[in-house]
């Protein structure tokens, strides 16, 4: 694939060394590492050689039936466990995982994500309700941050999403957000099945991401 990699420099590390170094870096890092950063840390010639090394590593994990893989997220690469181990690993972190975002928090986050930078007033105009508490939660969870001040009365704070936001939703970058057209389509599909007026009481269905096997 990249056979001519080392013709430029006699100091060029061989592909396998770079691959192993990348693996070590991804293993040690608690945040996604960009191709540029990986290139810098390994001294690899180009981002392209990084990409090919990552491709070859993930292929190797898949073929050797490992329980983890490399994903592209928040502009970088990250080692993660496979979804099928969600049940097992969840037990390890039982009680330590942060709660899911509430519906108002998700709505507010969505508005910030698509309209950033945006002031609290503008968010409230869209949602039709006050957003103070939700904004505080989102800031506290480092999913949004104050990115500047607007021109309006009192120079209001403007909010934008953070890198952590992309990571939180597992998005590669902003282009990975669903487009408005896509949202409209999804909406049309949702409306087809009209939901009941009052949903049934929230009974724990025990679907903690664990696949239930019907042993019959």
């Amino acid at each position, binding site marked *: 694939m990249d056979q001519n990699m080392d013709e430029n420099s006699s100091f060029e590390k061989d592909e396998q060394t770079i691959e192993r170094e990348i693996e070590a870096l*991804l*293993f*040690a*890092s*608690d945040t*996604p590492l960009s191709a540029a950063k990986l290139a810098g840390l390994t001294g690899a010639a180009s981002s392209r050689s990084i990409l090919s090394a990552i491709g070859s590593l993930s292929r190797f994990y898949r073929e050797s039936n490992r329980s983890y893989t490399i*994903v592209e997220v928040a502009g970088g690469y*990250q*080692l*993660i*466990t*496979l*979804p099928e*181990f*969600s049940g097992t*690993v969840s037990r390890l*972190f039982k009680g330590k*995982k942060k709660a*899911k*975002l509430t*519906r*108002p928090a*998700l*709505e507010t*986050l*969505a*508005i910030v*994500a*698509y309209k950033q930078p945006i002031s609290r007033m503008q968010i409230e105009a*869209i*949602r*039709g*309700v*006050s957003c103070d508490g939700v904004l505080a939660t989102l800031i506290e969870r480092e999913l949004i941050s104050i990115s500047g001040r607007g021109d309006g009365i009192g120079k209001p704070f403007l909010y934008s999403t953070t890198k952590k936001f992309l*990571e*939180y*939703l*597992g*998005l590669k970058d902003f282009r990975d*957000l*669903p487009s*408005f057209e896509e*949202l*409209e389509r*999804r*909406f049309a599909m*949702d*409306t087809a099945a*009209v*939901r009941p*007026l*009052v*949903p049934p*009481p*929230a009974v724990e269905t025990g679907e903690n*991401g664990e696949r239930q096997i019907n042993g019959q």
Partner: protein
Amino acid sequence: MPYQIRLVQFEGPLDLLLHLIRRDKINIYDIPISHITREYLVYIEVMQELELEVAGDFFVMAATLMRIKSQMLLPRHEGLEEEEVDPREELVRNLLEYRKFKEAAHCFAEKEEDRRRVFPRPVIHPVEEDASEEPAEVGLFDLLEALQGVFENLKHQAIYRVVPDSVTVEQKIEMIRANIARRSEVLFTELFNGKFTKMEIIVTFLALLEMIKLGELVARQMSHGADIWLYKPGFGSYIDADGSEHG
């Protein structure tokens, strides 16, 4: 319990309106305003009956609906037709805009769920720093912790009853000052070497605190729990560290 379900279901007036529109299969671009107003008010009433705190935003919307309704009842001027704006227009625009983000939130929830099923490497707690790194200045609590250690040691020592020397803080400051002048850096525990009584330890500690306050001493350590070193300000201050090490 049903209280909570309702609250969760309607985040705000727009949410409630969208629900009614969906429930009654209403064309959002041509909302029968008197019908929707009536239904909306019924809901508000129910919420109040359940003694739910109905947010002010819900009443603002009720007023808006009634205003639109009255505007719709006004006779239209035939000649001015193209100038006329549908009184519902702004509301519809808001509803459509809100609906998009509601759907986006839906989609975010799915992505959140997916992401929660995979686990990245947890946050790293950095390993012991390299000795060449700059030690951090310590605070009162680190010093107290170190003092605790001194007391701990005291317990293990054979206790000799001695007539207490009445050492004052001032005298101790003089002694530490002389010590530090000679060597420019002293280990915290060194100050307490020797057969000290509890009182003497405390006096020494107070002297130390006083000197730090006066800026005559700086206490630093490489990492939490590591040895605390006392420096003359400007000495061993690692700021233009050229790999100087201690210990």
